[in-house]
Structure formats: structure tokens, C-alpha cells
């Protein structure tokens, strides 16, 4: 278990200082995959380095399995670090050593003899699926393979914790998915606690149990990934969620006056967001039947997050004004977030030019 208690880190410059991390307190449970997400400069990399004391916090305390890291001597700290693996965005492999030699590096003081080291290295290589790359130098490996070697190296001394600093940010989406799957398997197989630093919400969505969103050195919001996605409280959180969902594209389409979102008088565009884990009813069919509405789905994005469906639809609703209102009421009652993002119900009699002004206005209000 990792627990940060009022951690701050200030970098003193010549004439100004930068507060990279400000009074952060959080707890990461044993065996959990915990995400820390933020834009670059948010302080997340500094924060993760405060866990293994690569950066010593200016204030606050860091507990790893109940031990206050900030009070350890240099020697005790080095021993402790062997039980906290870390991987990096740029892999940081030793270029002059082969994959096997890289993995053997941290085993030097482990008490294993030569053949013991060789066996352990083989075991680790097969764990990350690189049995055949034993004698390759890093320059002969692809980015994904390099990161796998780095993972094997980080796991050499059976750490209980693995810190991942933007570990997938230099990789293509396909490789990223493969690597995330590997991390997830390691977590499931060994119960290793994983802390994932990233700026990609996709990564959080894929593997994290809980997530903290960082901004300006502070934690803006923290919680279970599903509830964060379902009900983001902070603007920064919504920005991150929007990056992963095609639903937010609707605003771009409306702003760009795309034909896909042009509506006739009497119609309106609704954005429906599923907020609860239990959404399984055929909501669209139900509102069509019960309220006599045509719901034309123009966008949809439903994903499984933490095993539960999360996402939403963008529909053009057509029908009597009272029908639409009743349908919105019904949906809200079913705990579906309903947002009217473009409304042409009350503008049927207006000439075209004024209608544009009115819809533009409505768009701004509802946005």
C-alpha cells in the first residue's frame, strides 16, 4: 500500500521556484492499478518520483507498506527501491547491454549465483514474451519490445509495486494496447500494485481501477474510474473524458455546420449519457413507442469501463413538442443524462436567418 500525506515538491530555480506538486494526499491500495492523469506540466511525473524518492518531497510524508520513505537512510532507501520497479517513457535501457544483460543488471546484489541469474532472466523474458530476444541490443528492438525488456528488468527483484511513468506514450496505439494487457496480466497474476502516470485517458480507461486527475500540481478529482467517467465533477476531468469519446465530436460538427447535424424546425438534438452501471433497457425503442418520437441516432459510443457499459448517444428527436418533453422526463427518471444541444422546436415560424441566430444562442446556453 502506498500513502502520500500532504506531499509538496518545489524546485528552486535561480530567481524563481516552481511548485510542481502541491499538498497531495492519496492512498493507493495493494494490488490496485491506480492512474494519475494530467496534461504535461501538471506535476504527475514529479509526484510518482516522490513515491520512490527519486525526488525528495519538500514537505509531506510518503509511506510504502507502512514505512515512511522520507526517514530512511540512503542505504535503506536503496534496498527499498529494489522492491519498487519503475518503467519510463523513453525505456531507459542500457544501450551497451543486451536484453538479457539489462534484465540481469538489478540482480547483481540479489544473492543469486550465475546460473540462478540466467534462469531468472529467462523466466522474466518469457513473462514478457521475448524469449527469442535474449541477445538483442536495445537498438535492435522495437519500441514495444524495449518497454517489455524494461518491464522485465523492473520486475527482476519481485517488487510489490510497479511505477509506470508515461510508459506507453512513445508507442503506437496497437503496441500500447498489447503493453497494457501485459500490465493487467501481471497485476492479476502477481497482485502487483501498479501506478500509471499518463496523459492519455484511453490508458486509464483500459486498465485502471481508480484514477486521480492532476492539474497545477494538485489533485483535482479522484475516484473509481467508472464513477469518474460517468459523473465527472471538474472541468479538467471532462476535458480528459472528451478526448476519449466520439460524443464530444458533435460540438465540432455543430460548430462546423455539418449536414449530419442540420435539423428541421420541430426537431432537436439530444445527447444522452448513461450514468449508471445498470443501463440495459432498450431506452430508444421505449421512448419511440411510448411517446411517439422518432429518434434518429447520429452518434453513439458505448464502452465497457470496469466491466460496465458507459457512454452515450446523440440522437435527433422528431415528434410533438410535448412528446419530446415527456421523453426527456422519462429518460432523466431512468438516470440517463439528457442534454439538449440544439433545439429547433420553437423556431418553426422564423425565417432562416433568425433561426440561425436562435439556434446558435441555444447552442451556447446548452453547451
Amino acid at each position: 500500500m502506498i500513502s502520500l500525506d500532504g506531499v509538496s515538491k518545489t524546485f528552486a530555480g535561480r530567481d524563481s521556484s516552481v511548485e510542481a506538486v502541491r499538498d497531495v494526499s492519496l492512498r493507493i491500495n495493494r494490488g490496485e492499478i491506480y492512474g494519475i492523469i494530467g496534461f504535461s506540466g501538471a506535476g504527475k511525473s514529479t509526484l510518482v518520483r516522490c513515491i520512490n524518492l527519486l525526488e525528495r518531497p519538500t514537505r509531506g510524508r510518503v509511506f510504502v507498506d507502512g514505512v515512511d520513505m522520507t526517514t530512511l537512510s540512503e542505504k535503506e532507501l536503496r534496498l527499498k527501491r529494489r522492491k519498487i520497479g519503475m518503467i519510463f517513457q523513453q525505456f531507459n535501457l542500457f544501450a551497451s547491454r543486451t536484453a538479457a544483460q539489462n534484465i540481469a543488471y538489478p540482480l547483481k546484489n540479489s544473492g543469486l549465483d550465475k546460473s540462478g541469474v540466467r534462469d531468472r532472466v529467462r523466466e522474466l523474458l518469457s513473462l514478457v514474451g521475448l524469449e527469442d530476444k535474449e541477445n538483442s541490443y536495445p537498438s535492435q528492438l522495437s519500441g514495444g519490445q524495449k518497454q517489455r525488456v524494461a518491464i522485465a528488468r523492473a520486475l527482476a527483484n519481485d517488487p510489490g509495486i510497479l511505477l509506470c511513468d508515461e510508459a506507453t506514450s512513445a508507442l503506437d496505439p496497437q503496441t500500447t494496447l498489447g503493453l497494457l494487457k501485459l500490465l493487467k496480466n501481471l497485476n492479476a497474476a502477481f497482485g502487483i500494485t501498479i501506478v500509471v502516470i499518463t496523459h492519455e485517458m484511453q490508458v486509464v480507461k483500459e486498465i485502471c481501477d481508480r484514477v486521480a486527475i492532476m492539474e497545477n500540481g494538485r489533485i483535482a478529482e479522484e475516484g473509481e474510474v467508472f464513477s469518474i467517467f460517468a459523473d465527472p465533477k471538474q472541468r479538467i476531468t471532462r476535458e480528459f473524458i472528451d478526448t476519449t469519446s466520439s460524443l464530444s465530436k458533435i460540438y465540432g460538427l455543430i460548430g462546423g455546420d455539418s449536414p449530419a447535424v442540420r435539423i428541421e424546425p420541430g426537431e432537436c438534438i439530444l445527447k444522452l449519457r448513461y450514468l449508471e452501471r445498470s443501463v440495459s433497457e432498450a431506452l430508444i425503442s421505449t421512448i419511440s413507442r411510448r411517446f411517439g418520437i422518432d429518434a434518429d441516432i447520429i452518434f453513439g459510443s458505448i464502452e465497457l469501463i470496469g466491466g460496465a457499459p458507459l457512454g452515450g448517444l446523440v440522437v435527433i428527436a422528431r415528434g410533438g413538442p410535448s412528446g419530446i418533453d415527456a421523453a426527456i422526463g422519462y429518460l432523466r427518471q431512468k438516470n440517463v443524462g439528457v442534454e439538449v444541444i440544439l433545439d429547433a422546436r420553437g423556431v418553426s415560424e422564423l425565417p432562416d436567418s433568425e433561426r440561425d441566430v436562435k439556434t446558435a444562442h441555444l447552442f451556447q446556453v446548452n453547451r
Partner: protein
Amino acid sequence: MVGISGVFAFAFGMFFGVAVTVTRDGGVMENVPVYHALDKTVNFFRSIPFIILLAALIPLTRLIMGSAIGVKGAIVPLVFGTAPFFTRQIESALSEVDRGVVEAALSMGSSPVEIIFRVYLRESIAGIARGTTITAINLIGLSAMAGAVGAGGLGDFAIRYGHQRNQLDVTYVTVLTLVLAVNAIQRAGSAIARKNSH
């Protein structure tokens, strides 16, 4: 003369090159006062032309070697003339080691001494080989001036016989010998550097 001063200059340069690298701001054995002292000392000796160094170091040379003339008298100034240069070569080779790699070693629980030997020196063998090559060739150049304190050598030979006796063929043979020697050193250095680049 070149051999003995080379060995000493290599040892001193290596030590100080590593010291300058690890004591600088953000280094694994950060110690800014020590860094500045080393840095200034290296600059000081680097700014003195060798022929002047040769004369200026006479009292020190006499103290250490018991004599300030002959081969004995040339070794101390050659070490002083070469070690600071080699220090910079080592510093530059070690600076090629990525900061992130050092950080990775720290995260695996390596001590500063381990990082020096298992990361810095190991990772920059190619750069060190190149720096050593340049320094060795430089040293040969400096040793040509050692004749000024009666240490003999190829430079002295070329001046005394080739120039002062006007035996141009002697000068040419000297030049040829030096070209071959430097060539051999360069080849060996490049081969080591190539073998250690992955």
C-alpha cells in the same frame, strides 16, 4: 616518456573526468563546491601553452622526480599538460550517457559508485576510446617539445638533426614515423569504439 606520462594522464583524467561529471548540479554525487574547484583547475591548466608549462612546473617537477631535466623532467609536465585535456574528453564522453538511464539505475537501487562503474563507464566505452585516441595523439604532439628540457624524443631528433644540421631526410623520416604511429593509434581507437557501439 609517452607511455609513462600516458598511463598517469589516463588515470588522472579518468578520475577527474568522472568526478566532474558526478559532482555537478544534479549529478549522482552532487557537490557543487568540489565541481567548481575541479572545473576551474582544469581550465587553468588547459589555458597554459605546453612550452610555458614545461618551464613553469620546473620546481614541482624537481620536487616530485628529483630532476627537472631529461625524460624524468618531461613526465610531470606532460601529465599536467595532458590530464586536464583528457578530463574534458572523459567528461564529454560521460555526458553522452542519458540522464534517464542513470535515473533508471537509481530506481533499481544502485549506489552512486555502482552507477559510476556499471552505468557511466560501461555505457561510454566507445566515447572513452575515442577520447583516449585523441588524447594519445595529442600527447605525442606535446612530447615533441620535451626536447626543450633535454628529454630527447622524436621532436628533439627532428629539430637537432633535421633542422639544425639541415638533414632534411631525417625530418622526413621523423614525419613518416609519426604518421605511422598516429595512424596505428587512431585505428586501434576506432576499432574499440566501433566494437562497443550498439
